[in-house]
């Protein structure tokens, strides 16, 4: 004869090991002896309370009871599976880099540097993330919006200030071709974008690529 505590331990073990939610009827079958449905239900409620404050939750679904992770812990789990991490496209990253290093900038400025038009999706992606916002308008025809990075951007990248971005001086010096790294960057720019190559014959046109792409 199992004590209520022992029954609870068995229920917990079975639910943790189960691949599918388990119904009360199934849970009762775990035992040799007769355990009332009410008892099982009461012990499940106790279990649920026992797990309060942990990263895993005992939930009662239409198809039965199961343990599942709490949404608040998703960010930790995501870090453990970096292969599932979505990545921004080169277009988004380059746009962000231009805004970060050259802020405040207009869309036209970004297009000048990138040599391609900037799709509204890219700007929207970065605004939605609250990484950039409009800080004003340039006093030129059309009064284009001036974009800059936000505090959230700094927080999310773990920076205290823009000063902590990799220094620009070094990069601009490398532009003169004095730095080996420029060579490397050049080499990279010819090898890395190979996947974007097809149809690049008319790449001097618009930036139609997806703002963010899931890495497969």
């Amino acid at each position, binding site marked *: 004869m199992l004590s209520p505590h022992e029954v609870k331990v068995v229920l917990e073990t079975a639910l943790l090991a189960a*691949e599918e939610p388990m119904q009360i009827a199934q849970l009762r079958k775990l035992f040799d002896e007769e355990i009332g449905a009410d008892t099982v239900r009461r012990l499940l409620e106790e279990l649920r309370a026992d797990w309060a404050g942990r990263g895993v939750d005992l939930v009662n679904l239409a198809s039965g009871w*199961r343990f599942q992770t709490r949404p608040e812990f998703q960010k930790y*789990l*995501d870090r453990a599976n970096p292969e599932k991490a979505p990545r921004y496209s080169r277009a988004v990253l380059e746009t962000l880099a231009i805004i970060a*290093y050259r802020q405040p900038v207009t869309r036209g400025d970004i297009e000048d540097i*990138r*040599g391609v038009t900037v799709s509204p999706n890219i700007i929207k992606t970065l605004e939605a993330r609250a990484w950039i916002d409009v800080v004003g308008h340039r006093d030129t025809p059309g009064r284009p919006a001036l974009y800059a990075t936000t505090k959230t951007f700094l927080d999310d990248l773990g920076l205290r200030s823009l000063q902590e971005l990799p220094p620009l001086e070094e990069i601009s010096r490398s532009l003169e071709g004095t730095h080996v790294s420029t060579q490397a960057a050049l080499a990279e*720019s010819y090898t890395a974008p190979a996947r974007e190559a097809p149809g690049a*014959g008319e790449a*001097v046109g618009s930036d139609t690529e997806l703002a963010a792409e899931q890495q497969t």
Partner: protein
Amino acid sequence: MSGAVVELHPGSEQPIARVRGEPWLDVPADLYIPPDALEVILENFEGPMDLLLYLIRKANLDVLDIPMARVTAQYLEYVEAMRRTNLELAAEYLLMAAMLMEIKSRMLLPRPRHVTEEEDPRAELVRRLLEYERIKLAAQKLDRLPQRGRDFDAIEVWIDQTVAERLPEVDARDLENAWRRLLALARVREHHKVTRDELSVREHMTGILRQLADGGFREFGELFEPWRGVAVLVVSFLAVLELVRESLIEVTQAEPYAPIYVKLVRHAESA
């Protein structure tokens, strides 16, 4: 099937086999085994090594000093019994029989006074028997280890994916790399300033690419429109050169003065 009435328990306290309810307490000394039992007995051996090891262990013989005559006789009687009952006998059993007889005959030869272990004709057999026995016991021990899926399960709690879509992570390094790429591209572009002239070249490039879009060959001359004047001819020619430089088209000529053909380069990615 008659085999079904036979249960086999050699080596245990129970009868070695039960044939139609009658207990067989041991492998009989005269080795008369009813065909039914024999079939079942054989199924329980993993091959001649196993059978031989069983005969030796069952009779409590010294593995390092196997009485070859006795063991060979027993083994052969088993094999004979199997043949009598028309059991399909695996080649391995016959091979072992031959090996046993060979060892036995070599043991009958006059032996040198000091027999070292290596000279013992049984040495190789003993080595193999011991190795097999060791593995056989190890296999039993492996089977006794708790096994995932059989004796325990790995826990894998359901991950609740109700949270909003996962956002890409970016760090400062990514930005630096993006910036470097931009600078590198900017440098490249400096050499190819998109001027008005260049634009007209690019326009012709697009035109030529359209002409070749079906993937087939065109004769070089077809790409030009001489009636539009020398300037256009030069620009078209520059466009072809630029397309070749950018590996977008390929130009072939089988031999000097043969027609020159042009076609699109098929990139693997564009397939």
